[in-house]
């Protein structure tokens, strides 16, 4: 696990740690505002089958704002993504991936 923690997580630290160790969702950061869901699918499905992609949106304008969540079917697929896609380029930007406890409605803003 990396140092990143969601500060809005509404539970105890232990609970968050436990969930992170079982998670198969990743938080993806440093995306270009123009990067599309299609591109995300293309790059991230190189590590396994994707269950869901949720684009991060600007609270007010409802436009992509540089992050997203990618959920895989298996944790091992997400682990491969941490190993081999984190730190590579998409739309010429170095993307960063981190473990996430799993997407909940509202977190895309």
């Amino acid at each position: 696990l990396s140092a990143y923690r969601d500060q809005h997580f509404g539970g105890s630290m232990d609970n968050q740690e436990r969930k992170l160790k079982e998670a198969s969702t990743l938080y993806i950061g440093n995306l270009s505002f123009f990067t599309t869901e299609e591109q995300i699918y293309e790059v991230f499905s190189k590590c396994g089958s994707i269950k869901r992609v949720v684009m991060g949106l600007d609270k007010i304008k409802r436009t992509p704002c540089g992050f997203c969540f990618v959920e895989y079917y298996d944790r091992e697929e997400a682990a491969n993504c941490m190993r081999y896609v984190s730190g590579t380029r998409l739309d010429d930007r170095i993307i960063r991936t981190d473990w996430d406890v799993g997407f909940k409605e509202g977190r895309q803003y």
Partner: protein
Amino acid sequence: MSGSRRRKYRDDDEDMDTSHRSSKRRRPDNAQIEERLESLITRVGEKSTSSLESNLEGLSGVLEADLPNYKGKIIKILCDCAVALPEKITVYTTLVGLLNAKNFGFGDDFIIVLSKSMREFMKANEWSKARFVVRFFADLVNCHVIDVASLLSLYENFVAVSEEPDIPQVRSDWFIYSVLSSLPWVGCSLDEKKGEELTKLMKSIEDYLGKRKKDHVPFLRVWHGENPHEQQDYLENLWQQIAKLRRDEWVEKIIMRPYMAFHSILSESSVHSLPPFTPPPHNLELNYPIPKVVFRMFDPTDAPDGPPMPGPLSIERYLVEDQISSLISTYFRDRKDCAAQLLNYHAKKQIPLNYVIVEVMFGQLFNLPQSPQIHVFYMALFLELCKLQPGSLPQVLAQASEMLYERLEHMNLHSSDRFVNWFAHHLSNFQFRWSWEEWTDCLNVDVDLPKPKFVIEVLAKCLRLSYHQRIVESVPETFAPLVPNPPEPIYKYGEEGAESLPGYAIAQTLCDLIKKKGSIEVVLEVLKDAPNPKDVDGMEDETSFNALKIDVFVQVLLYLGSKSFSHSFGALAKFLPVLKELAVNEESQIYILRVIKDLWRNHSQRIAVLVDKLLRVRVISCPAVANWLFSSFMSSSFTRMFVWEILHSTINTMNKHVKGCETELEEARQSAKRPDDVDMESDEEDRYDITKAASESKIEQLQEKLEGAQSEEKKLFLIIFQRFVMVLGEHMVSCENKGEEFRTPWFIHAIQRLQQIFLVHYHQVVKYTTTLENLVFTSDTDPTILEVFTAFRSLHS
């Protein structure tokens, strides 16, 4: 997303940390010492300020002191290192040698434990670990731990396996390979002390190789034919390398042998005999490694500067490749560490290291049937290597890409798919810069030929990783014919002249309704009005389903949800009941797929994700997808990569479903076995019976579900193979009638796609070998097609 969310832990964790530490301080327990021993042992041989020899001497002193209390633990750690860090084999054999010299009992125990684990590895089908043990034993002869005669008798028992009756060739292969691959370490000692016996042993191996079948070789070659390098069978190649090594009096320049420095200490220690070892007899549980073909792309002229590339028949080439592969399999989880380890490889003064690394990595990426690691790993590792060696590695990689492109005509299609995916992804990390002008030879030739096909597929993948305008701008104008169309939907009822289409009015109504968030019932009501014209798009006598209904609904729904994948998925989810009602049988499911292809003909990725979604929500079945891909609607795309990606992903989905059913059933059976949450007191017995009956009926249901899934999987494979035999056969007949050669680019492509099914889904297809032999690949099948099946069978014979 603000920076604050990424803040590190606060102080409460530090408290936890200190309390943890102080408790440790209070009781310096065994675990702590064991941990320290483990770290000392695993790290020896890494980069250090002092010499390897002095580190080994120091470590053996430390371990000797701990032997009275921690012998078992030390032996276990060393045995683990012997198989987990094979690239450091001689470091550990030397260490074991030094410990044996100090403590005779240790050597004896060590050998017994390692010998036991070799047997366990074999029983558990961990063949590469077992091979590392054999090599470790061999090198222990050099360290005066094991006596030559007992190693020789182990070898003889191994070679004797090849004489066993009624065993698969892959079994004998493994035992022969283990002996041959350990000879570079111990050949010299053997020759010196047991020259005659060694000659005999080599003779038996040579005899075995002479009668060995090699039908699998063309099936596993990355390149067909021999240009410019022959892709040899792995045993054959190693045999020639060993034979040459023997002629060179067992002198090689690659293996680092730290024990040479300790000659005086080691030569005084007494040697042990290996416990007698008979290989576990063959049974159906044992799955031996499938044969390999050696990948070759470079020769000495390709790397003009620096040390020369060892020739393909020299043992140096084998040793270097084997050690680079070991490094990759030890460090693959951390690509940065992996790259650093590769570039630090100890023998780099004697070889052109960058070339060897690039060759080994492409060899792994293109390996058939599967590559050892997931494909994206190789892309990531290449990036890391380019970062660490920016002045030299990118050039080698570009040179390799040029060579791979030049040899595309001979390249196995399955490997060239991986080449496409790697190359496009790699380019996307380098601003899509490439000197396309060098490849203008792919223009103005038949687009079905491998070179233009490669460029078309690469650009299609680049498009998926970026956007249309970007790709248009990154290639020269002359490449425009190979650039994909903009990935826009083609909405039939919105085009000029659409008014005259039979479903136009309904499409308009439906469109308005869905935009106004109309309910499912209302939508179904509108669709009821769709006439069932028997002549829509040439469909004849269609009674089972209404093609127009499907056409209008799917066109409108997907067009309205065309903005993004999420919009499409949302639309499908919302109108799932309508889709399920329309997809009543396989024909209508195929028709749904046909409409999707029609609308999204310029966006293959969208087609793929939609098919995947529809499969998962069970609107369409896997066999329907297979039948659709082989149908005439798809024939114009038959040789495109996306078609085969969809097929393979469909097979994988099917397989996962079967495995899911298996797990479910197994879990239900386990929980039925131990009714621990039920009170077994007499008055509760009735309730227990009820629970038991309920779980039994649940098991029955799950059993049925599993059988259903298994038969669907079997059906899927049968359809695929039957359709393949049909299309290939039809092509051959029509060529014969026209008096033309049947081996057209299309045919070569198609037959390799058939081969690909066998390769990629090897483990599933193996189960159906007999069925396929009786139903599909019979003696009536054309020999050219049958050849693929025969080669597949030779992989496990």
